[in-house]
């Protein structure tokens, strides 16, 4: 039985450790609120729209601003900029252009 008890103890220990880490994480997030406030302020001062994560292409640097609809600039999902290029979804506001057919009025 000592094996089972030792094992259960180890499991409990790991569980408690994990819970402690998670709780510590929540606390850290609360402390971080001040810093986030500073960064929010910076964002609003400079009018930033995106995170500076991937700087290799326009559409990865400013994900939300990219005009992916512009043809032939870089195929979305192209593997040349892996992995960012293949996992970023297209931006949202697509241009509202469209094709409408206006038929010639009948001569009769």
């Amino acid at each position: 039985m000592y094996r089972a008890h030792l094992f259960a103890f180890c499991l409990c220990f790991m569980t408690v450790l994990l819970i402690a880490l998670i709780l510590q994480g929540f606390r850290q997030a609360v402390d971080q609120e001040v810093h986030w406030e500073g960064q929010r302020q910076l964002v609003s001062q400079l009018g930033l729209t995106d995170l500076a994560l991937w700087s290799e292409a326009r559409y990865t640097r400013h994900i939300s601003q990219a005009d992916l609809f512009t043809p032939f600039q870089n195929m979305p999902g192209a593997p040349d900029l892996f992995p960012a290029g293949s996992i970023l979804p297209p931006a949202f506001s697509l241009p509202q252009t469209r094709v409408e057919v206006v038929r010639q009025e009948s001569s009769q």
Partner: protein
Amino acid sequence: MTRQWKLLDYALASLLRRKGKNLSILVIYTLTVATLASVLFLTQSLRQEATKVLSGGPDLVVQRLMAGRHELVPLNYADPIRKLPGVKSVQPRVWGYYYDSLKKVNLTLMGLPAEPEILVLLEGERPSKGQEIAVGRGIADTYGFGVGDSLLLIDAAGEKQLYRITGLFETGSDLLTNDLILFPEAELRRFFAMPTNRATDLAVSVYNPREVATLAQKVRYHLPDSRPIGKTEILHTYDTVFHWRSGMLLTVSLAALIAFCILAWDKATGISADERREIGILKAVGWDTTDVLALKFWEGLAVSLVAFLLGTILAWTHTYVFGAGLLAPVIQGWSVLFPDFDLTPSVDLYQLFILGMLTVTPYIACTVIPSWKAAITDPDSVMRS
């Protein structure tokens, strides 16, 4: 209760009998969970960072499209927008990209409006005169310079221009300013040779955030060649990129998960002659089928629970203590300037639960089900072996 304890005890003894095999499975299993959980934590934190920080951004960004592509906005486009009820202010933004072909680095150049006087998170001074700039920490680290040094950049006319660095952004703002160079707005216009009556786009702020969608429609009505992008869309973009069901996590983790399932299946279905014999002996000494299956359940649970807990703890340490050092290069791709992650923990317990279910349940199933057939045979086969 005692019975289950004793079965667990025996299950552990049984696992220890095949130490090498079970230990290697445990290691692979733990690493799989650690990888998955690392990606989970990382994306979740980035998502949190994005939503917390970018919520301070402009409510609406208005771009102009011409000939199917992005075009500079005439400043007088601001006038009809300003007149719309609910609009607080319209601020033209001047920004663009600059490529360094030597280091193969893309930089974002941004014009600093006249307001505000004091910039937050900036060490040193705000660039105010021409030939002054403020720079993100990532660039400073890549090129190795500090406040007081100067940068030589080539302007639109092909002329070399010298800029003195008056300020550096603080480390904490890496995720926002890593590749950023701030110029006084007039100077950036000169640098890019951008006409004074144009801007890159217009940042609009509104009184009531809930009206953004309606305002966007109105902008599009008054300025048919415009492309308004709302803040909710911006935030939604990041939500999607870093959401666990889409984007990064799915891409990276699916392969790992499938590989692990194959391993578990292979391991568990190929119930060895040795195990078959063990089950026969257990039945012969008075175990019934449910006892054997309970034993297999405990074996599976012991391995998978340890792997899950250990993997998650490892992932946590890796992501939040060591800044996701092993994962960053994978996500970084070809970016030369990539911010150091100093992430704030963010855990969605529901996701953790899903991860647990996805890793623990299949393994237990793969351990219990194949034993079923061996467990229901009559024990007398053992007498004849």
